[in-house]
């Protein structure tokens, strides 16, 4: 039962990653791309959660924690850069 749930979750998350990636490529502005990157990071956190259940190796959760942290810092740094005179528009 749990096995099928894991497969379904993997499928849903993979599809979500593809959709997020389309937005990352399409833009249109740099801020939209940062939002897409944020989403990809939290999708990866979810992905790691499912694979922790699948593999039974709880220490992998640390990876999810660090990823959530760095993704947040990256978003803040990007926003700072955009605000303080980065490229005004990239399309």
């Amino acid at each position, binding site marked *: *039962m749990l096995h099928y749930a894991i497969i379904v979750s993997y499928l849903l998350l993979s599809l979500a990653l593809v*959709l997020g990636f389309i937005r990352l490529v399409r833009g249109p502005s740099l801020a*939209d791309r*940062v939002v897409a990157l944020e989403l990809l990071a939290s999708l990866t956190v979810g992905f790691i959660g499912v694979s922790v259940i699948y593999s039974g190796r*709880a220490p992998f959760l640390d990876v999810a924690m660090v990823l*959530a942290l760095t993704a*947040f810092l990256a978003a803040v740094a990007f926003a700072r850069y955009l*605000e303080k005179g980065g490229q005004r528009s990239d399309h």
Partner: protein
Amino acid sequence: MIIEWLTGFTIVVGSGFMLVAALGVLRMPDLLTRMHATTKAGVLGAGLIMIGVALHFASGPVLAKAVAIIAFLILTAPVAAHVIGRAGYFMGLSLWDKTTVDELKGRYDEATHTLTSPPDTDTPPDGQGRA
């Protein structure tokens, strides 16, 4: 047995919400509405998956880590949305055609990066001006 069903249920529902978040990011018309999709559905999706992880292992350290990740997501996702939205305003973002009012427009000081409050907070200013 019940725990197994619950775990499966939380991770599938969590992944479903994450897919909704991704669909929202793809389909929503402008930056601000896209951020609605990522903050809410992203936090709920990842949070549900972490609850599933905690249920599956049911041990102290894993529970602590799962709770820490959920607390971290709840604290940071809105802050990230705030800094990106703010940067968007400085970059001169264009809002969706059907946006009704924009009371934030023109309130940022481009030189000092401060934000003024509306002159009279009881009556909204005529914020029809769009980029």
